[in-house]
């Protein structure tokens, strides 16, 4: 499952990121690495950006990124759609 498929309030662990090295670097810098836990704080409509909570940081990522980050949903945070 990908970040883009997550619903608001769901959290999960990042499994894999496949979006080229530049983007991976950028994500690494803000703490979005395989193994990190993310929570979707909100989603903007019309394929807008997703707001994520990564550690103590709030990060906004565009759809391009959200499509490239593979996550594993925490079962406690709600069932998969």
């Amino acid at each position, binding site marked *: 499952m990908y970040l883009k498929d997550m619903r608001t309030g769901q959290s999960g662990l990042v499994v894999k990121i496949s*979006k080229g*090295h*530049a*983007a*991976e*670097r*950028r*994500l*690494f*810098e*803000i*703490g*979005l*690495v395989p193994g990190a836990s993310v929570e979707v*704080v*909100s*989603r*903007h*409509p*019309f*394929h*807008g*950006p997703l*707001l994520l909570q*990564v*550690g*103590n*940081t*709030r*990060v*906004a*990522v*565009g*759809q*391009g*990124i959200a499509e490239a980050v593979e996550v594993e949903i925490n079962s406690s945070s709600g069932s998969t759609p």
Partner: protein
Amino acid sequence: MTIVIIGNPNVGKSLVLNRLTGSNFIVSNYAGTSLEISEAMLKLPNHEIKIIDTPGVYSVFTMGQDQQVIKDLLQKEKPELILNVLDASNLERNLLLSFELKELGIPMIVLVNQIDRARRLGMQIQRDRLENILGAPVVFFSAITGEGLMELMQMLEKNIDEFAWPSRIESFFEQEKKPECVFQCRECSIGSESCLSSEDFRRAEMARYTAQLVVHGQSETQRYWMEKAEKFIDRPLSGTILLLALVFLGFFILLKFIELSEGPISALLYPLNLIIENFVANLLPPGIVNTVLSKAIPEGLIIPFTIIMPAMLMVSFLMSILEDSGLLPRYSVALERVGRLFGVSGQAVIPLSLGFGCRTPAVLATRLMPTMAERFIVITILSIVIPCAATIGVMAAVISAFHASLMVLVITMLMVLMVLGFIISRMMPREEVFVYELPPLRIPTNKNVLKKVRLRFAGFFTEVLPLLLVMNIIIRALMESGFFKLFHSMEGFTRALFGIPADAFVAVLVTMFQRYLAPLVLLNINLTPREATIAIAMISLSLPCLPVMVMTVREIGFKGLIKILIIGFITSFVVGAALNLILPW
């Protein structure tokens, strides 16, 4: 002795430098304020220390532009000490950089900044444990309250002889150039552009583990009310509505302020004006020089004060609040979708909105944009479409003087913004990488806001006022000498194409190079509301002013500027001709 400050973006590095040295660098609540390196001197009782502030980075081992700046700086300055500034409320991410810096082997002091905020959030950080893990002294610091300042100074004074630039570091920087590290970087201690090394992951792991070990009790008390506001604003619908409402409120306050202040200020200046006029008129022998100067000097003084000053003052104030509260980056998220239409990512909101204050620093702020192509788009839009504070004041005055149509002007500007953005972005390659860190919301401190208003407003006295005075004298002289009458033969041409008299067209040409001059030139011509609307639209959508041009050359080169100037000329003429065709009356 030299100290280099290194830390993540938006952790308060510049504020630390200001506290330490008493200097005045601009501080904002969003990532990427210090895009350039700044330095200041710290005077201790027996020593003088050079302190250098650097752009915020998340990692010094990566290959970005900012990282290179820091690497070059380290090799050039050979600092004896690194001051690693961390955000106390966000240790996990900040510590990653600390672990990288530790490997450089340069002596380091770790400054845990914004400790007051972390405490308010209910976080407890175990200092001795952190010192043990990092192997470096840790100082709790608050640039707001001044906590830790004395301690840091004493620490510097006491240990000053122990700090030294390590010799083995040279080989460290060489390592990343080795071919093995480029092709098999997982084995090297520094990752490379093309991949993350296992060391990168180890450090990330260490940072996470350390943060868990030294930070206690954060989750229970996180229900601080700022967080509640954050929740509200970060919800797509309620947040976007609130943010847009704030923009309207801002513009309303701005326009009301301009409107209300003009009367009192000119009433106040009127007697002074008469005195100057009489003084100049009596001082010089009668003749053309007398007429020009006695009219131009008082006029050149009163126009900036009544028209430009209020706008600049208010915009500086509103922008400072927007920056310090942490709201500005939220606009980039809310407007990300809209920005896509223009071919720019949401980050563009920051330079574009800075442009409403002054466009020169806004051009510098385009460094936030991820690609050169996007920088060009944003600089072009800034140069041609965005009105700066001084321009807004000027335009407001001319619009009301001629009863020109504000609505037509606003719609024209929006249309140009859309069409221009659309066309340029189609000409540029695009890549969708939008990642932006949102700072926590903060209540701006009076002191910081006041300081910023003062800094921004200083330009009024150093740039706007002298420039207008000089230009006004030149324009007056041209008018009195009948130079502008030479253009009367163009009347038929300008009437047919743009629907404005030749005088106004000359005014347009003059003001293209300096928009502040619009009222000086236009107010001396008789124009109908229709003619005024067209002339003002052509002026508003033309060329960047001289300081912006200089900055543009510095940032994207001469070729970029030439392209922008050509686009500017075309835009202005197309707008004039189009409005002439469309406007009915």
